[in-house]
């Protein structure tokens, strides 16, 4: 019996490490677009994976791992607001990741787009991140966010619409003026 227990533990460890390696990047980026804060994102991801470890036996379908982790992370994020509601102010002015130091054309555009995305209301940006970064369908997103599909599609429409309008307002030479 003891050898079987430690064997199970070893298997669990292998599963866990595979999960971390495969999904920590996606999860961190998702956390970043949820919180707009590098440190908070890292903490959230750590907390999420710790919870995932404890509940790992309940994860039967490896294909569902990513959305399972995202669900845990969203719950952890909500808990963060219950704990310290006063930190909300930090959320208002989105401090966007600064990658200006390597000022290639591409980085300038990324920076500009990140700024615009950070200005989207969170209820619009969240499904957009799930769709573009996570590759989820409207139905999947609706399930994960506990919304109905029409609401999700409307929010996605508004998110892109607002971003496109912002893009079109910007002069073509925006990169030079930005930053």
């Amino acid at each position, binding site marked *: 019996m003891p050898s079987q227990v430690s064997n199970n533990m070893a298997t669990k460890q292998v599963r*866990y*490490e595979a999960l*971390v*390696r495969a999904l*920590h*990047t996606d999860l*961190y*980026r998702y956390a*970043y*677009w949820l919180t707009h804060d*590098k440190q908070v994102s*890292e903490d959230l*991801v*750590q907390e999420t*994976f*710790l919870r995932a*470890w404890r509940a790992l036996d309940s994860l039967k379908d490896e294909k569902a791992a990513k959305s399972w982790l995202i669900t845990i992370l969203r719950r952890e994020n909500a808990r963060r607001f219950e704990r310290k509601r006063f930190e909300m102010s930090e959320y208002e002015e989105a401090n966007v*990741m600064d*990658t200006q130091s390597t000022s290639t054309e*591409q980085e300038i*555009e*990324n920076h500009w*787009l*990140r700024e615009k*995305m950070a200005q989207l209301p969170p209820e619009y940006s969240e499904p*957009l*991140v799930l*769709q*573009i*970064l996570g590759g989820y369908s*409207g139905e999947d997103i609706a399930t994960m966010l506990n919304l109905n599909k029409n609401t999700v*599609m*409307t929010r*996605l*429409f508004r998110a*892109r*619409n607002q*971003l*496109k309008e912002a*893009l079109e307002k910007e002069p073509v030479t925006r990169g030079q003026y930005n930053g």
Partner: protein
Amino acid sequence: MDDLQYRRSIYADPTCQDADILAAQQADPAKKEFAQELIQLDERLKRAMQVPVPDGLCEKLILRQTLASHQQKKRKSRVHLALAASVAIIAGLTVNYLQFSNSFTNLGDYALAHVYHEKNDFSNDDKNQISLTSLNQKMIAFNGSFEQSLGQLISADYCRFDGMKSLHLVFKGITDTVTVFVVPKNEQLAFNKYFSDSKLQGESIDFKNTNIIVIADKNESLSQWQRAISDNVTWSI
């Protein structure tokens, strides 16, 4: 599909492959171009969303889990130890309780049960003889002594008389052994002077700190034994 509806669908999902969307794109190149434009926007957004991940995050996550589960294991083994200790204590208390609790309410019942229990250990034909000196050595524990021998003493040993340390004496009798208990007084066992069942009879004598109980079969004269004991025993303070 009208233009507004088409735009809404494409804005919501530029890669939409629904039949009516595809049909609309087939019919109108401008619509197809519009979709392409948004797919391109998505590409740019995707690049922008791929923010750099902190160095070593992966290793940190694995390390933290390893530490946390190690801690948990340590906690668990402490819990197990505590559980084992509790079980041991309870087992100890139970044994103690069973062994030393009073399961009989009066002297007579217990004395009879005790005699029946050890019935096969002694016989009237035993050739053992224990001297008065060694008997009196044992009596020191009860602050008493006998002046003369009461008869052939086959066995004299301390034993537990319903949890109390007492002296168990077995004498040779007329037809069968005669058992004498020297027992410290106990409030929990009711004193009864005479008791008997179908085979055995018993009589207790009440001294200051001690009871002496004599049990024998019905052929013995208990009053004679009683008198012999009462005349013979002296108690020191």
